[in-house]
């Protein structure tokens, strides 16, 4: 009976979903690899085969390598700060203080709002509110808008990203802390483990699975940052805060070099895949059972 209706069942249950997936993800992905070998400008109906010429174009595109380097720097800062802050806040939240749920829900709020809106909110904060604080108090730190100076604009981008992402990671770390075995914690305390030692030898190893997830999520999100980058700095001043994902967009849709843009997108994809794969492999090895 199963073989007789196998085809019909496949068409009914599997095909619609599979079709959407193939048409939107797999076909464009493969077609994208082909695009890197052509000189398409986005308009012309003819695509000439140019071999690996576009990858040569990527090599010569110094702006791409600058943005990639900047993205690396950004990822390191964001990943480390987000996870340290989220871990610390989650730790404080799970000590049995009052209003745990309220805090947790509040910290998560930025995650509900799109990056575009968040970026604009912070643009106002950096360019008007902080400057106004600077004018009133005379603090050098807030004298000029952070967004008009390359280094400070980068810091601003990191601040906003940390603010945006940490709420999500707090949720995951809180779930991790709640899952910690009370008996193990008590045994550690009885054995005299306190403070730093307890954190390093007991809590951290037991929290490794949460850390694996959080590192993975922050890594992949930070590498692909676009919305906040676009609305907060837009690459300004003078393209000094343009991250890799934004550069790829500009290359393809503004400079109309689709082949080079797609080649850069693929290189970015491979870098992200390798790094996050490596991260998951390395942190998974550290995971232990209680």
């Amino acid at each position, binding site marked *: 009976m199963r073989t007789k209706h196998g085809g019909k069942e496949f068409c009914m249950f599997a095909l619609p979903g599979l079709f959407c997936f193939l048409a939107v993800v797999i076909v464009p992905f493969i077609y994208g690899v082909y*695009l890197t070998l052509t000189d398409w400008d986005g308009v012309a109906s003819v695509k000439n085969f140019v071999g690996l010429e576009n990858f040569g174009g990527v090599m010569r595109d110094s702006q791409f390598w600058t943005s990639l380097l900047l993205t690396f720097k950004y990822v390191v800062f964001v990943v480390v700060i987000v996870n340290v802050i989220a871990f610390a806040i989650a730790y404080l939240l799970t000590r049995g203080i009052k209003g745990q749920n309220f805090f947790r829900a509040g910290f998560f709020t930025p995650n509900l709002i799109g990056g575009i809106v968040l970026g604009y909110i912070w643009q106002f904060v950096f360019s008007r*509110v902080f400057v106004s604080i600077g004018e009133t108090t005379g603090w050098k730190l807030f004298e000029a808008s952070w967004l008009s100076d390359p280094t400070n604009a980068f810091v601003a981008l990191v601040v906003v990203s940390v603010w945006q992402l940490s709420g999500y990671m707090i949720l995951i770390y809180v779930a991790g802390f709640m899952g910690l075995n009370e008996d193990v914690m008590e045994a550690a305390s009885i054995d005299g483990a306190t403070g730093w030692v307890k954190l390093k030898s007991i809590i951290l190893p037991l929290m490794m699975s949460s850390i694996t*997830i959080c590192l993975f999520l922050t890594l992949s999100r930070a590498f692909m940052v676009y919305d906040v980058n676009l609305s907060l700095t837009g690459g300004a001043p003078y393209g000094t805060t343009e991250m890799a994902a934004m550069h790829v967009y500009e290359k393809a849709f503004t400079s109309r070099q689709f082949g080079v843009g797609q080649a850069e997108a693929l290189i*970015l994809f491979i870098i992200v895949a390798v790094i996050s794969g490596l991260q998951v492999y390395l942190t998974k090895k550290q995971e232990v059972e209680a």
Partner: protein
Amino acid sequence: MKKSTIGGNKRKLANALAMIGLIIVFIAYMFPFLMVVINSLKEKRDIIKSPFSWLFTIKGLSFDNFEKAFTQMDFLNAFKNSLIVTVSATVLVTILAAMLAYYIVRHNNAVSKLTFALMVASMIIPFQAIMIPLVSIYGGTLNILNHRLTLIFMHTGFSMAMSVFMFHGFIRGNVPIALEEAACIDGCTRSQTFFKIVLPLLKPIISTMVILNSMAFWNDFLLPSLVLTDKELLTLPLSTYSFYGTYSADYGTIMAGLLLCVIPIMILYVALQKQIIGGVVAGAVK
């Protein structure tokens, strides 16, 4: 807390310090939102004079900004567009992914194995790696950009892999095959079995996926910005973007516009807080 008796006062003090620290950090987190709310009610010159001023002088408080933002952003239309796209794509991906995952779990053949492997592998592909060919295919060859349906279809396709993965895990762990066999003996067809027996059992995972997907669709900017250019069709993030480009110097109106975008989400969040937080945690941990 039982443990607090062991540590005594020291523990109490530590908790009080933790509380104070948390409150300070929390206020810092909420500060940008507070600024938006305060300044959305002020006139431009008051904002430039001091973004804090409203705290001390109530003079000049008005809702004019909201009126202006509401009409300039074409808020109702953008809201409607976002709602149509989000709801249709969410419903579509939920049903199609549940069916596909169900097929994969119940059929141990080469097709389902290959499909599943392909989907899991594709989850690491970032959107940026496919956006250019996507525009090339759907804009150039097929020429069907600038339709809501195209966007809905693409949202569905992009969230398919993740959704199937989640449903797959849930069905394998929580839907006993004996139930389906019983239904089969009682004369149910495959589709009746799925819609009447299996689907109701999937409620927990459906609510998780609906929350995750609809949040992603509602807030997405990059994909809609590539698909929709027609002013009539813009979703909320897109119309915010174009609105900001035109009025960026008009702070009061901008703040009101941003607040208008945030308010509907906040209302929903307050109402469904438990489900949303639970859904996000469940989605991440898997």
